[in-house]
């Protein structure tokens, strides 16, 4: 059984991905999360650092300022410190208040980011509202810079990972794909390519060894099954041959035949029936075991004519006629032995069940083979005719396996067979599906 491309495509659609696609995907997701968390942590840490640093500066300045205010009476504002006398104390609960604000620095001719702390100082029984500024512009710029570099770094890294995994998939998985190919081409009963694929990967080596074991087991089982089938055929036919011979002997014994003619006849007929049954079942088994797989592009024209020639006199003796309409180009892709069986069975059935209200017709054209004969309708439905041991009531000793055999062969060779009955004719149509 070969895994075809269409099947693989279908698998891809229904949610099956290459191993390395999966690992790359998960790896990327993981990196994304790791990056994100790291970035978050770093930012958090950076902010905390800024806050701590600025707070330490604020605290120092506050200490100096408080001492100053306690010693001196005048209030002086600096650029970084703004002092106000506070008369109204009702809103003071909200202080200290932190905010970030931009301030224009004249010397640098730039606005820069500052951390502002606004708080209340108590000195000499007076309350002052103080706001202080600490330059955090460098920190902030650094933070932004880092962020700016992280994104492209991540993208570059992702790109490199993808490139790398594409490369690795070729290299690492090559032995794996080679092993897969060998498995794909394996057919029971055929010459197998038993040379090992070289690999240093433990799992692949294990897989190869396992595969080898499995093949050996399968081949062994298959060989045993074939042997069993052949033995059965042989073993069953021998006793049947003996019974038949003895019965034929009885035919020559006049005394016996006078008394037991009917019994002898029945024994003889049933033995023949059993024999035919064994042969046909054995053939079905062999076909199922794949023993006839010599497929060729078989042109049917000559073979059909040969068969018709073989049965020509038989047909005449039964007062039947055969009409042919054969295409010289018509062909089936099938083992010739199996086509022989199909043709024999269908023709045999036609001759057997044909009435002479009309001719037996055989036609080939394009991808079709048609055979039809006039006759009485069957008592069961069209579908059942291909089942094993189906026989119509007027078929006497018929095996009921002929059409089952034909259908099985068709199924295994991409041929579709249909049966229908209309206008007094039984019609079988075989359609090539390939």
């Amino acid at each position, binding site marked *: 059984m070969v895994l075809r491309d269409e099947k693989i495509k279908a698998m891809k659609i229904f949610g099956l991905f290459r191993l390395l696609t999966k690992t790359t995907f998960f790896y990327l997701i993981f990196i994304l999360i790791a990056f994100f968390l790291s970035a978050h942590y770093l930012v958090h840490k950076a902010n905390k650092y800024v806050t701590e640093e600025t707070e330490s500066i604020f605290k120092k300045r506050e200490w100096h300022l408080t001492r100053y205010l306690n010693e001196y009476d005048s209030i002086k504002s600096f650029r970084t410190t703004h002092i106000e006398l506070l008369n109204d104390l009702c809103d003071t609960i909200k202080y200290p208040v932190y905010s970030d604000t931009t301030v224009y620095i004249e010397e640098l001719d730039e606005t820069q980011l500052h951390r502002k702390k606004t708080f209340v100082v108590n000195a000499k029984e007076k309350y002052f509202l103080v706001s202080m500024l600490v330059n955090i512009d460098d920190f902030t710029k650094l933070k932004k810079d880092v962020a700016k570099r992280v994104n492209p770094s991540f993208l570059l890294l992702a790109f490199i990972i993808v490139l790398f995994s594409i490369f690795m998939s070729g290299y690492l998985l090559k032995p794996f794909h080679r092993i897969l190919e060998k498995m794909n081409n394996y057919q029971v009963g055929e010459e197998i390519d038993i040379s090992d694929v070289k690999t240093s990967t433990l799992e692949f080596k294990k897989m190869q060894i396992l595969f080898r074991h499995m093949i050996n087991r399968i081949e062994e089982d298959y060989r045993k099954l074939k042997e069993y089938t052949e033995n059965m055929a042989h073993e069953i036919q*021998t006793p049947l*041959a003996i019974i038949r011979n003895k019965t034929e002997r009885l035919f020559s014994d006049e005394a016996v035949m006078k008394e037991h003619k009917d019994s002898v006849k029945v024994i003889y007929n049933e033995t023949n029936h059993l024999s035919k049954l064994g042969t046909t079942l054995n053939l079905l088994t062999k076909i199922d075991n794949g023993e006839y797989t010599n497929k060729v592009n078989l042109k049917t024209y000559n073979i059909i004519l040969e068969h018709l020639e073989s049965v020509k006199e038989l047909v005449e003796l039964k007062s039947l006629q055969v009409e042919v309409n054969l295409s010289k180009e018509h062909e089936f892709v099938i083992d010739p032995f199996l086509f022989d069986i199909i043709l024999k069975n269908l023709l045999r059935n036609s*001759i057997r069940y044909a009435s002479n209200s009309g001719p037996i017709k055989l036609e080939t054209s394009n991808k079709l083979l048609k055979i039809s004969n006039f006759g009485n309708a069957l008592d069961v439905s069209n579908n059942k005719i291909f089942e094993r041991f189906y026989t119509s009531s007027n078929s006497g000793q018929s095996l009921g396996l002929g059409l089952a055999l034909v259908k099985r062969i068709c199924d295994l060779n991409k041929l579709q067979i249909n049966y229908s009955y209309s206008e007094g004719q039984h019609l079988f149509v075989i359609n090539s599906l390939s």
Partner: protein
Amino acid sequence: MKLLIVEDNYQLADDLSKFLEENGFIIEIANTLKEAKDKVGVYNYDLIILDLGLPDGTGLDVIQELKKINKDPGVLIVTAKNAVEDKVLGLEMGADDFISKPFHKAELNARIRSIIRRKNFKGNSIIEINQIKIDLDSRETFVSEQLVELTRKEYDLLLYFMYNKGRVLTKENIAEHLWGDHIDQADNFDFIYNHIKNLRKKLQKLGADNNIRSVYGMGYKFYEL
């Protein structure tokens, strides 16, 4: 004519042996491959009936052995039906003909006679019973020296009867000999009566007596009168 039957089943070998002895052959039996190889080494046979499924190997090895010791008897291999590889291989290796199990003894008889005739250019190219004479080389039939125009199947039928004269041939037997797999074994074979009627008519028109008689409603016998 000395024949060797190579068959592991004693019952079957014995049965065939009796039948063929009645038909005028001298028979020896080998039940194993080893026995067969030994016998062909020591004795000379005109024909070997070779069952391929032996307990200690395949009958095809006997053909190899014969080649090795430069002996050239007729070889008739007995195969299971549908054993295509066996047939092909056997014939490729030099067997003269094959017959599928199970077979009618009459069929076996006909095949043996056919092989012997082919291998033995000197004798037996004429079969003659009463007024009927068949020239096997030219495939012509004569009644009292007059040529009879028989169809292919009529000729086959007459020859089969004459090879197996005095033996009851059932309708199945006849149908299988003439048409093999092409005919449905569940057929009622009544049409065979017409076949025989046509044959009789042609023979009797030129003065032959009626050798072919119906037996018990199930078959026919060719009587030597």
